[in-house]
Every structure is written in structure tokens, then in C-alpha cells.
């Protein structure tokens, strides 16, 4: 029997697969959707897969840039990014957190100098990649819920 697709294939754009189930809406928030795009975006939540449930996001006519990929890795460390060109997968890679996160997450410590009026960008050391744990470069605190601290 032919496998039925929950959401249709796209001609060009990006498919973010293997998002931790329930995190698709946060991924959209990180990508600034719908504010940043007028593309058609399809979202599937709690899709059955070999490894349990997952979410999928399909963004038409938009190829994600690396910084956006980094952001996604913070809340969906097992996600894969598929760049689609003319219905074919042109590029496929697993997201991977870099060793340092700059300008993506704000420090949860209100008295951290990175939250003061200083000419610096927030900066975090990645201390664990999966599940992600990060530590502020300045005050060394770990934000408890990273997804709440995405700038």
C-alpha cells in the first residue's frame, strides 16, 4: 500500500523533519514564521515514525541559512533539514549545535552583564549537545528552559 503523506510534497523550500514531538510551534517561532515570510507553511504534529512521534515543518520557497539551523538545534536536536529543489532533496543534513551560541538566546539571569546596557551580544558555551545544555559565557548560569529564552 502506498504510504500516504500527511502534508503534501513541496516543489522548492525546506523540510524540517524529526523535530521533537510537540516542538514544531516553537520551531516556527524561532524562524519568525509567519512574521518573516509570506510562504506557505505546513505543519504536522505528532506524526508516527519508526522512532516514535515527531513533528514536521515544510516551508515553501525558503532555504534555511546556517544560523537558523543552529537555533533549531537548541530545541530540536535530532531534526534534519532537507533543502528541496524541484521536488528533489538537493541537500540534507542533521542539525548540530556549534560549541558556542552567539546572539540567539538571552541570559535568564536578570543581573547578568549581557542583559545590562552594554555593547555585547549574548554568548553561551554549549556544555551538552543532546539534550542541549548551555551556559552563559558571562555569568556562567544555565537557562532552565532554553526555548523560552530564544531572542
Amino acid at each position: 500500500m502506498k504510504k500516504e503523506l500527511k502534508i503534501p510534497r513541496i516543489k522548492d523550500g525546506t523540510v524540517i523533519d524529526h523535530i521533537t514531538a510537540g516542538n514544531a510551534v516553537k520551531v516556527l517561532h524561532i524562524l519568525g514564521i509567519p512574521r518573516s515570510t509570506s510562504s506557505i507553511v505546513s505543519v504536522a504534529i505528532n506524526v508516527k515514525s519508526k522512532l516514535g512521534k515527531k513533528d514536521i515543518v515544510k516551508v515553501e520557497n525558503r532555504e534555511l541559512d546556517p544560523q537558523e539551523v543552529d537555533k533549531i538545534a537548541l530545541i530540536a536536536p535530532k531534526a534534519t533539514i532537507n533543502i528541496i529543489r524541484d521536488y528533489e532533496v538537493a541537500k540534507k543534513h542533521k542539525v548540530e549545535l556549534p560549541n558556542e551560541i552567539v546572539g540567539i538566546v538571552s541570559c535568564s539571569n536578570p543581573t547578568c552583564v549581557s542583559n545590562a546596557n552594554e555593547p555585547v551580544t549574548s554568548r553561551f558555551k554549549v556544555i551538552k549537545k543532546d539534550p542541549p545544555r548551555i551556559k552563559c559565557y558571562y555569568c556562567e548560569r544555565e537557562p532552565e528552559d532554553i526555548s523560552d529564552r530564544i531572542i
Partner: protein
Amino acid sequence: MLLFLIRMKFKGKDIISIKDFTKNEISYILDYAEEMIPYAKGDKYKDILKGKVLSSLFFEPSTRTRLSFESSMNRLGGRVIGFSDPSGTSQKKGESLADTIRMADSYSDAIVIRHPHEGAARLAAEFADIPVINAGDGAGRHPTQCLLDLFTIRKEKKRIENKKIILLGDLKYGRTVHSIAYALAIYKAELTFVSPISLKMPNEVINECKDLGVEPVSTSNLEKAIKDADVLYVTRIQKERFPDAEEYNRVVGSYKVNNELLKNAKDELIIMHPLPRVTEIDPEVDKTHHALYFKQAFNGVPVRMALLSLVIGGSI
């Protein structure tokens, strides 16, 4: 050769967090501080920092840290510029810390900074080419206090390894206890954390100790913990770190070290305190042989002399 290499690594280095240093590097600083003692007491003099200028930027009040840094610089022949109250500076006009640091960078050979924001010293190090020494950043780190505490324990107890050490008091907001817990864990000391429940040691610090192979015990029962302790490290409940007065009033005075308590302690127990103290150590304890906090405060001078000499350059 190894010692020479360690020494070379310190020249121009920032002293921001004790975590930036290996055990070998820490031990090297403590050994060098030992050599500094006669110079710190004024029994010997060598102007190895003659012609050098230290910027002493204290955005928060301090007695011991500021004075001991200034004493250290002077005793090595250097000079000190700076302030102990930012109200007389352009910070009052809204100048950023980054710009203040840029200025100090061009006027001096090293910067010592105390600031109410956590991470301020790390930021300062980004904007300065000269070495920056953290003299306390908010509720964050205070590496030179940590080094002088290690120096004191090692000097009094001959070693730190396997010593039973109690950290008592405000373990949640106290900046010295977070650094010292980590550093003591590097040396494999046996740690007991005693505090009111609302001021418990943060899990983050406990986990760091565990990562270093030390399993700290947490309790609120000081009477029991003190029985076999080698070191009792007491801290003040810091009013200025509490988000609201109500929480402070609930816990202030919740523990007190007095002669009655010390009846249960080992004869060779030493009591340390980063000072200032308020009510947590009864003045009657000062006269006992357990009290080490004033000697501990003096140790700030040889340790800071060693650090200034290492990061600016020059050797006794």
C-alpha cells in the same frame, strides 16, 4: 621546566573565574604566594612592579579586597589609580562599563574590578588588552577570595585533600561559596553544605562537585556536622543579594557559631569567614584558637601580590 611554563602562561592573563585554572596552576599560585609572605608583612622589599600602574575599579563597596589589592601593589613598588565609589565617575552620566574599561586600559598595566553585575569582569576582559582581575562580580565569582581561602586551608592543614570542610550559611546567594566549593572539589576535599533550606547550595554547584568526583552532603544540622569537621567556613547572609526584604528577614540569624557549639568540635577545627561578619560568629569565638578569619584576611595580601606579579610581570 614545567613550573617555568606555568609561570609564562600567567603573564598578561585575566583572572576571572577559578574555573579558568587547572589544579597545577592553582597550586603554583599558592606556592608563589607562600614566598610572598615576608614581602606582604613588610619584612622584605623588592620593587618588582616599579613604574607599573594598577586601575582599581570598585563599583561596589569593599574593605578587604580593595585594600589588600592596593597594599599588594604598593608593597611591590607599583602605584594605584581608581575609585571605590562609582558616583564620582562618568558611570553616573550613563557611560557603559565597556567604555570605562577602555579608558582604564589606556591608563594602566592591569585592572582590578568589582561590579554588581555577574559577568562584568569577563566583559571587561573583552574590552581590555591588559590583564583584568575579578574582585567580585555580583553574586557570581570571586576568584582571588577563593585562592586566599585555599591558601589559608593549605597553610593551616598542610593539605586540602580529604579534609572535612563545612560550608555554612548563605549558600544560594553567597559568591565566595560557589567558587570555593568548586575549588575544594578539585582538591578532593570532603564537603558538607549547611544552610537554611531556602538558602541551599544551587544544584548547578553540587553537580559541578560531582563531576569532579566529590559527593557533597547537604544538611541543615550544624551541631551534627561540626563533630568531625577540620574546617568550618562561615558566610554572612548578604542582605544586598536578596530580591526582597521579607525573604531576608525570614532567614537572618538562623545560625550562629558560638563557644557552646564549638564544645562539640574537634580541637584542631579552624573557623574561616570571608568577612565582613554580622551576627553569624559570636565575638567570643574570636579569642579561641579556632578563629582564623583575621589571619585569613591577611593572606589576601601575599596571594594578591603573587597574582599581580604573575600577570603584570616581574619576579621576587
